[in-house]
């Protein structure tokens, strides 16, 4: 993250797995969320001394007059380029979340938990019964054999590094700082939304249902359902698929349909890795992927992307489901309890995310 993430310290919020950095608290109580590091007393002393030594040349013809400086435009996206990274991150987050709402789980509505954006319901998820989770443990045991093989992925993805998607698009920090910023904020936003749903549905992790699972990494301090990793990975995949279908970007890639398939496949891989690790049920990935798809679409809407409509869905987990992209994307999704609904809806673009989107597209205008 240090070399690649471009949202500075906020990048390490990562998959909120690393709001776990709350564990390593400093006095702020929010870990590295707040700025203030890096004060070098020697540097301060040196600057003070130099200041005293040179200021006389600017005062030789009288006191400076600031009266002719024009004011900055108000509430303009273009101001974003002059704000610090963490300020931009804060603005993206508050802007995107101010229209989010939720309710439930409502017993009368069959225990459904609903989330809406700007008054439009975009996802309804049923809290699965414990018996459903219990049956899912068989899948976790099936996947255990792959732990050693996937260990490098699992450990490096405790907070998902943008590199896993950057490698598909050929991103580099020098050329694509805004693209990386877009990936990171998509991840952070998805994580926040997922935490809301996890908190309200409060489902136990696999190791609580079957002690033989023994996860290969520490079980995180939040609920199992939905998987935040699936939410984040699918939100990123949807946002990047939207990005590469913008004409200015598309013509930099030979075959965007192949790249699109890779982005979604990587998201599936990241989600399934958590099942291999022993911390998520396949149905957690179903719920997370559905939520992530919606969050990705909301982000595209806020960005003012050409492809920016949100398709609402409902999800009722099935005990037998394994999680495979082909089934999540294909017609058999319904058989696994995921229904995508009509009509879709559109979201108004936000100035700050709109600025990020246009800046990101600009990074691909290299010819």
């Amino acid at each position, binding site marked *: 993250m240090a070399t690649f993430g471009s949202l500075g310290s906020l990048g390490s919020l990562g998959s909120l797995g690393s709001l776990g950095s709350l564990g390593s608290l400093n006095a702020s109580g929010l870990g590295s969320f707040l700025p203030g590091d890096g004060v070098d007393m020697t540097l301060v002393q040196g600057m003070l001394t130099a200041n005293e030594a040179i200021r006389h040349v600017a005062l030789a013809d009288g006191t400076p007059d600031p009266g002719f400086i024009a004011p900055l435009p108000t509430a303009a996206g273009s101001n974003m380029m002059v704000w610090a990274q963490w300020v931009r991150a804060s603005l993206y987050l508050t802007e995107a979340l101010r229209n989010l709402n939720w309710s439930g789980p409502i017993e009368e509505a069959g225990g459904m938990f609903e989330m809406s954006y700007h008054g439009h319901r975009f996802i309804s998820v049923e809290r699965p019964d414990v018996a459903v989770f219990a049956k899912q443990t*068989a*899948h976790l045991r*099936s*996947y255990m*054999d*792959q732990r050693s*093989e996937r260990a490098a992925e699992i450990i490096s993805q405790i907070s998902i590094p943008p590199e896993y998607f950057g490698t598909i698009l050929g991103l580099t920090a020098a050329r694509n700082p805004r693209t990386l910023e877009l990936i990171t904020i998509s991840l952070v936003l998805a994580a926040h939304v997922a935490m809301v749903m996890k908190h309200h549905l409060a489902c136990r992790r696999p190791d609580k249902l079957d002690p033989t699972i023994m996860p290969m990494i520490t079980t995180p301090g939040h609920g199992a359902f939905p998987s935040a990793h699936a939410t984040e990975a699918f939100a990123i995949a949807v946002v990047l698929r939207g990005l590469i279908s913008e004409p200015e970007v598309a013509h930099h890639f030979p075959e965007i349909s192949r790249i699109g398939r890779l982005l979604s496949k990587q998201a599936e891989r990241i989600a*399934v890795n958590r099942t291999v690790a022993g911390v998520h049920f396949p149905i957690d990935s179903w719920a997370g992927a559905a939520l992530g798809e919606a969050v990705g679409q909301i982000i595209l809407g806020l960005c003012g992307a050409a492809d920016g409509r949100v398709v609402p869905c409902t999800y009722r987990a099935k005990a*037998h489901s*394994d999680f*495979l*992209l*082909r089934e999540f994307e*294909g017609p058999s999704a319904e058989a696994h309890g995921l229904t995508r609904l009509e009509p879709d809806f559109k979201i108004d673009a936000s100035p700050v995310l709109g600025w990020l989107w246009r800046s990101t597209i600009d990074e691909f205008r290299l010819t």
Partner: protein
Amino acid sequence: MELNDKATLSKIAGPYEVWALDEPGRSYGIGALSKADTRHFAAMAELPDDHLLLRERSISTTENGRFRTPILWKNAFMNMGKAACFVPMVFEPPVPAGDRSPTSRDIATSLFTLAAIRKEAMFTTFGGDITPAIQTGFRVNSPLPPRTVETSDPPNGDGRPVVTDTDLVSRLPNEAGVPPVVIVAVIDDGIPIATRNLRDRNGRSRMEFCWLQSAPLAEPPLFRTVLFGRELTGEDIAGLVKKHQGDEDAIERAARSRHAGEPHTGSASHGAGVLDLAAGFHHLPDGASGLGLDRIRVIGVELPAPVMLDTVGFGKDAFVLAAFHYVFARADAIAAAYGVKALPLVINFSFGFSGGPHDGTDRLEQAIEDLVKARKKEAPTVLVMPAGNTFNSRLYGEIDVERASLPASGILPWRLQPSDATSNYLEVWYPASPGADDPPGAGEDGKPGWPEIFDPSGSPVFLKEGPAGTASHTDIRPLLRDGHQIGQVSLDRFRGRRWRLLIVLAPTEPRDPALPRCPAGLWRVKVDGTTAEGRGVISCRLQRDQDLSGRNPASRQSYFDDRNDVPIHESGRLATEDTPGAFVRRFGTLNGLATHNHVLVVGGFVGDAVLDGSGGEMTVRPVPAAYSSAGRDTATGGPNVHCSASSDQSYAVRGVRTTGTRSGSSDRLIGTSAATPQVARNIAFAYLHSELPHQSLGSHKLGDVPIMNLHVFPGTSGGSEFGAVLTRRLGAGVLFTPRNWGGSPEVS
């Protein structure tokens, strides 16, 4: 021409061919095969001894394709009597109309024509009343990439001459009964061409011949000596070394003419390790260079990469059989060059197979056995193969009706793994039943009782009704789940002897997401066991479905998940015996290509076997490696392990130290594949130095094979301290470790 004789056709296109070549099975294969990629097929033919193909190197028909043979050993079919002959071949079925690849039916039609050709004449059209001889059958293997196959008539097979080194020849012994040199042949993958461990004291490679079966044809055409792939002689290798000034990256690349996008030889390979252990320089046993490693000459055959990658399906029979013919033919050429009629030959084939009948009647086994038997009449010839690494892999189970060894449910528990992109295969072998033609579970009407199959949710999957099954031909039926075909079930009488039920299940995660898949989890198969009552056990075998090279991580091994089996004892050690009453069996896992009478089978043990200085007794008792496979009927002389070598240095340090593909690199090779070449090497040395102490395995079907550094267990009947358990796993003895093992290589 239209063939409607379904019975005959199905004799030719078996269930593996149908799944590999026809929809939907072919779509699950590795990579989509284009039309151009499926012009040439490799196959192994079982033909009567008067068949034209045994004499002609090429047979062309006007309508039904062309059939050609690679180099065949000249004495292969002598004195065969009326027995069946096994011939490797490359054939081109007619190009099907429309833009498609050949189906199993196209191929069967073409092979049917070949089968009908006897010595009388070449048939250019098909006569309706001609039927193939009784000993006729085919195993169709994978297609060959176009640029690796000769398109004109095959080369004459004599090859280019062996150029001997005059200095070496002047130093060779010249006395009756002492062979001037001994040949070690290694058939494997990833053969390193230029490794320094194979060079003699004059800097010349001891590899006299190497056949790279999947390399592009040699350029210029003048140098084309093989029907497919490319042959390198010792001169070629010397030329490459000189041209590229010893840069082995450049040598390997030039030798294989890799196209852009094709993988280059990696830093380590199975074949590199095996070759080094069998004949390489730095693993010299006692006496080092004084024993004259220069007198061990090498023939290498590199099997096509897909053969090792292929998780069954197409199979590799034709490539392997062609490799043996090639080795025998070139061994004759080497003997002639060194001025003798024939030389001792040790063939190391570190390759395992978990399927098959396991009674010596697999076609490839029988073909290899015939060849080895025929050569033994001329010179000492030993084939050495590994026991296999599946002792604890739960790939084998037995239905023993008398002993009620079926799981309590009466149903085979078959676990499919998630993320598996390859098909899974379960073979059920009924006991041999000469004369008893009724298929398993047959009722009054003689129709077979088909198995009942349940998916992991417990729902039954259905067999699509096919044409009425009879005892005379293969009956293949699609397996349906939710209206989609997700597998295939077949029943056939394998080579007219044993009923074989084969169940193929599609991958749990096919590469093409549009294809139907089988859910991962515990599948259950209920098979008929009553038919076998009083006639022996029913063997249930899962095909190996795992690529150990790591190049194909999407193949995952299915296994029998038998709750009655105890894999780990209370003490924490892995089971070394079968659990009474369990379906899963460990004894009976022996390599399915090493169950005939002319192969020396090598197991693996952990650590060193050390002899004390005085009485030649073992001071360290060898412990069988947990994976080292064993035969079933060890007490009654059935196929079994003959002797063993160390295959793991210790429980913590696995494998045997060997070399990578580049000179000076090192690698570890784990498994009975690593034990086997150590035995091969010590046999070769025993032939070279019959005056030095060596042992043999005693009276045995193999004859008196001399092995250096072999310690034969005292009293292998089971009364000794080593006991029956050890000999059941390790055979009659073990290679002990010479005192200078592990020391620095001696350089002369």
